[in-house]
């Protein structure tokens, strides 16, 4: 059935596909409450929406890889504020990651939510669908206004997910979540957009950047640095220290939320936004020629190491993973800050690679919680004997995060390290290497504990019955674990696309129609 | 001397200002709700004077077009003040009505006593 759907979709105009990608999760959000009393149908809606959405995204892929950048201009809200979408390679990659993982995550959610008998499941699925709609909108946004709109919507739709448990602790976390994310976006991100509008006269993402650094209206390097500051900290979802507190706080949410949203959609929306701002608003050349990016290189390098060190001291499993995420996000910010084509490629790849690895780790954490209600690392002794599949998956995903072949994480680290050399920041390369060691130090002990320490109260040779999480959870875990392997061998599909990113914009500035710019893009594809 | 002359020539304005200020002072300084209204009325009354003094022309008559009368007073300010008086009366009566209701509800018309009974009303 889906093959025929796929065939139909391939014949659709790419503009319609964009619209479909936005409308499918929205429609799901509207349909789910109707089946409030029939949980099976309700979950079916989510699953169908997820599969359709992923199919739609994958149908867009051939267009993008063919050099097109389909555009969907919805409406001009006010002068300069246009609601419009354009799929460019970075957004396509992010959209693919989010939509594909939504399928897996939905399967996992069903197992987890039912296994735990969670309350208010309908609103859970509704908010999830809205969050996905905003994620897709963000991925495909064609200008800063649309991005900001999607960004805020994503925060608001995930707030009820964070406070899902409605305990005082969850409420407190929700407050931190809302205040930090909305707060930074309002106080820093929004002024950054306003200033961009005032200096550049446009908000459209344009190859090569839109902020003038030479000529009559040139922005001084000082202001440029200030603007970058506003963007980096304004996009609080990227969890650059010190705006990272919301991420560990958000871990009170049910694990599927932590897995898809706080390891993939929300945080990646943050770093993706930063990548996009660096590439399409500033332009990497503008940053390197003015050296406005230097301080961020040091800051994000510091975050990479600091967050890893904090992660080592976390006993709560999800908190450790959260700090690991903070650290890994800073990889991507560092990649963006280095502002070379290679480092940005590495950053973009890391969105993909880290997503698969981290969602697996969270799935495992959730599986452990569903099956044995254990949340702390110190409680995991000998658990490998009870949950061999889960703990094996945990091992694989950890290795991918560390960056060991043949796992996907290898590639992103490779490109990031190369990018550091390209930019003549050798120390950044050292940071990547040290950080890999730290990753080993906070992830692998969990696995070794589970496999090599005895189960409390049970002698070493004694047989124990395997007690795994619900099958739905296991399926999801297996899929993403296999994904980690797969991405090592088939990373080309992403790499080829990232190659299409026009970093300099020298050629496309004159091109007006997407088709024309596509022609030029083909010629300029090998920027690296 | 010059100053005195100015004063004498504009004494009506000084009266206006005196009334205005004393009315406003009573509104602010007095805690009795009735006295506040008295002050408010005084304040409004001063405006009548403000409008009427420039309108009155010495020796002028009502503006009726007739042989033999050359000097007219401007009728418009008088008309305006008729309206203002109506507004003033309406305000005063509504204010007094409110005070009656307040007295019924709180048993007093002294501001401090009311706030003592109902701290949140402040």
């Amino acid at each position, binding site marked *: 059935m889906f093959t025929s759907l796929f065939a139909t979709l391939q014949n659709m105009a790419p503009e319609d596909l964009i619209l479909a990608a936005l409308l499918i999760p929205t429609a799901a959000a509207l349909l789910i409450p109707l089946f409030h009393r029939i949980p099976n149908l309700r979950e079916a809606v989510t699953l169908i929406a997820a599969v359709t959405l992923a199919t739609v995204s994958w149908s867009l892929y051939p267009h993008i890889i063919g050099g097109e950048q389909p555009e969907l201009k919805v409406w001009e809200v006010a002068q300069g504020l246009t609601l419009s979408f354009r799929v460019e390679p970075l957004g396509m990659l992010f959209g693919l990651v989010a939509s594909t993982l939504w399928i897996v995550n939905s399967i996992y959610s069903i197992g987890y939510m039912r296994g735990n008998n969670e309350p208010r499941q309908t609103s859970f699925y509704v908010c999830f669908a809205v969050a996905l709609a905003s994620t897709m909108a963000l991925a495909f946004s064609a200008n800063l206004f649309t991005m900001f709109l999607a960004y805020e919507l994503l925060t*608001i739709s995930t707030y009820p997910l964070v*406070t899902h448990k409605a305990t005082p602790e969850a409420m407190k976390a929700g407050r931190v979540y809302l205040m930090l994310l909305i707060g930074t976006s309002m106080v820093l991100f929004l002024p950054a957009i306003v200033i961009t509008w005032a200096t550049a006269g446009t908000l459209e993402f344009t190859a090569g950047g839109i902020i003038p650094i030479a000529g009559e209206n040139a922005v001084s390097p000082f202001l440029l640095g200030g603007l970058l500051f506003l963007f980096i900290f304004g996009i609080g979802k990227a969890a650059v220290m010190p705006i990272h507190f919301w991420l560990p706080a958000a871990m009170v949410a049910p694990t599927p939320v932590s897995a898809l949203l706080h390891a993939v959609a929300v945080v990646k929306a943050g770093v993706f936004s930063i990548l996009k701002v660096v590439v399409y608003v500033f332009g990497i050349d503008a940053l390197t020629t003015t050296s406005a990016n230097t301080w961020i290189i040091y800051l994000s390098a510091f975050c990479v190491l600091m967050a890893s060190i904090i992660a080592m001291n976390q006993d709560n499993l999800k908190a450790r993973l959260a700090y690991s995420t903070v650290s890994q996000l800073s990889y991507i910010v560092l990649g963006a800050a280095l502002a070379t084509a290679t480092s940005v490629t590495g950053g973009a790849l890391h969105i993909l690679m880290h997503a698969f690895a981290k969602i697996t780790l969270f799935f495992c954490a959730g599986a452990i919680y569903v099956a044995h209600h254990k949340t702390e690392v110190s409680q995991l002794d000998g658990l490998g004997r009870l949950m061999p599949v889960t703990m094996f998956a945990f091992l694989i995903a950890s290795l991918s995060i560390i960056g060991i072949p043949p796992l996907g994480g290898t590639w992103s680290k490779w490109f990031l390290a190369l990018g550091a050399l390209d930019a003549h920041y050798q120390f950044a390369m050292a940071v990547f290497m040290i950080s890999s060691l730290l990753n080993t130090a906070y992830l692998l002990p969990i696995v070794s504990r589970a496999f090599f320490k005895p189960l409390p109260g049970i002698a070493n040779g004694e047989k124990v019955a395997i007690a795994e999480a619900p099958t739905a959870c296991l399926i999801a875990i297996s899929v993403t674990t296999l994904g980690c392997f797969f991405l090592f061998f088939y990373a080309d599909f992403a790499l080829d696309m990232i190659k299409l990113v026009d970093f300099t914009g020298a050629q496309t500035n004159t091109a007006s129609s997407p088709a024309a710019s596509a022609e030029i893009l083909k010629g300029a594809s090998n920027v690296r | 001397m010059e100053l005195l002359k100015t004063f004498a020539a504009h004494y009506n304005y000084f009266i206006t200002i005196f009334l205005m200020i004393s009315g*406003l002072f009573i509104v602010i300084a007095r805690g009795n709700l009735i006295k506040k209204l008295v002050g408010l009325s005084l304040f409004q009354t001063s405006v009548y004077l403000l409008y009427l003094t420039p309108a009155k022309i010495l020796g002028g008559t009502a503006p009726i077009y007739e042989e033999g009368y050359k000097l007219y007073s401007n009728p418009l300010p008088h008309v305006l003040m008729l309206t203002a008086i109506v507004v003033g009366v309406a305000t005063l009566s509504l204010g007094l009505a409110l005070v009656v209701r307040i007295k019924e509800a709180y048993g007093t018309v002294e501001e401090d006593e009311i706030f003592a009974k109902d701290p949140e009303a402040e």
Partner: protein
Amino acid sequence: MNVLSWGAVEPQLPILLVVIPLLGALLTTFLRNSFLAWLVATVVAFTLPFISIHLLVTVLQTGQPIVYNIGNWEAPFGIVYRVDQLSGYVLSVIAIIGAVIMPFARRSVAAEIEERARSWYYTMYLLCLAGLLGIVITGDAFNAFVFLEISSLATYVLIALGKNRRALLAAYQYLIMGTIGATLYVIGVGLLYVVTGTLNFDDLASRLSAAIVDPGQRNAVVTALGFIVVGLSLKLALFPMHMWLPNAYAYAPSFATAFLAGTATKAAIYLLVRVVFSVFGVGMTLENLPIGEVVIVLSIAAMFLASISAVFETNAKRMLAYSSVAQIGYITLGIAIANQAGMTGSLAHIANHAIMKTALFLALGAVFYRVGSVLYSDISGIGRKMPLTMAAFAVAGLGLMGTPGTAGFISKWYLAVAAIDDGMYSVVFLIVASSLISVVYIGRITEVVWFREPSKAAAQAKEAPLSMLIPLWLLVGATIYLGFDTRATVGTASEAAKMLLEGVQ
């Protein structure tokens, strides 16, 4: 010729806008049945938006103001009614809000007002509406004062009939402050009349530029400006002259609060803009008195201090009332910046804020109808019992915070752009930082109503009736809609701003 043919009626529309509610008020006085009174008020209120929108559209199409000479006396001898881009826009806002909330009125008023006073209540409502529309449509400074007082006197009654005895005191305090404000305004107008001998806005404007050359007259003119600005600031509740507002809004009957929050201060803002820009001309104003700077400082103070007061409130209506003071700060800020973007943002916010705040107060009115209180302790957990009402509240709250995709964002965007256009980078951050405080107070009440266990009173409540939900969701829908389609708000506002700022630079 048919007297009632459109051709005969159309030229009379400006006066009808005031006469219809006045006659309606008269009619309701004689109706002792509260349902009939409501019906009359509703019919009257629903004719007004059609008239005002028709006038506005005509003005926008022709680009010429519509001038109506009362009794065929031409300006400056007679009183004229004048509809231009600005007044047509504000008229439409007031008339639409006045109409939309009418379905809500019946049950709410029936629940909160004694039977014998109900039909008079509608009388007062229509008088207030007539007064507000009159302020905006008139082209005569003194006539504006009269309408100001008509609307104010009606407002005092609307507030005083609240169930809580504090409503009486709130009405009394408002009466004192409002009368002082209106009297200050009329003193200013008197001074202008002494200098120029005219009361017509246009005529005043042309004669003032001549008068200002004479140093003696110049003093009088500047004094007049001071009196008028302070007087109107009292009426529009510019910080720190807002003290009357929180209690008045908090203890008035729900219907009155919803109506006043959307319209009353807006009419006063209109009058201020009209006098400062059209009569004095912004150049003259800023040259002679540092009004711009003072108002910017006061507006920012309002945005912060009133918002902080809102954070610590435990009475939902008072919380929103403080938020109103803060939002008025946004409006006056843009007016004081006085450039195209700022003016546009402020004028757009007049409509946006009216819609959002009315929606919020309607939601609270519905809660009050079911629970009988709006204290946080009583309405905790009400979201589970009245999900539709409180969802509407949440969405309108998002608008108030200025979330993109809502009307509130548009106004904020223009204000921020205005500040940058004027080189005031720090003001941009003050604008966004103060809206962050609104996140706190909206977030706090959201938490109370959605995530707390239902209180005793809330546990027995059920969803609001349809007659309350429909106007509520209409306004909430408008909040979202105007976040995307800004032709009606920003489009008109920028036309009006262009007109006001013409010849300024």
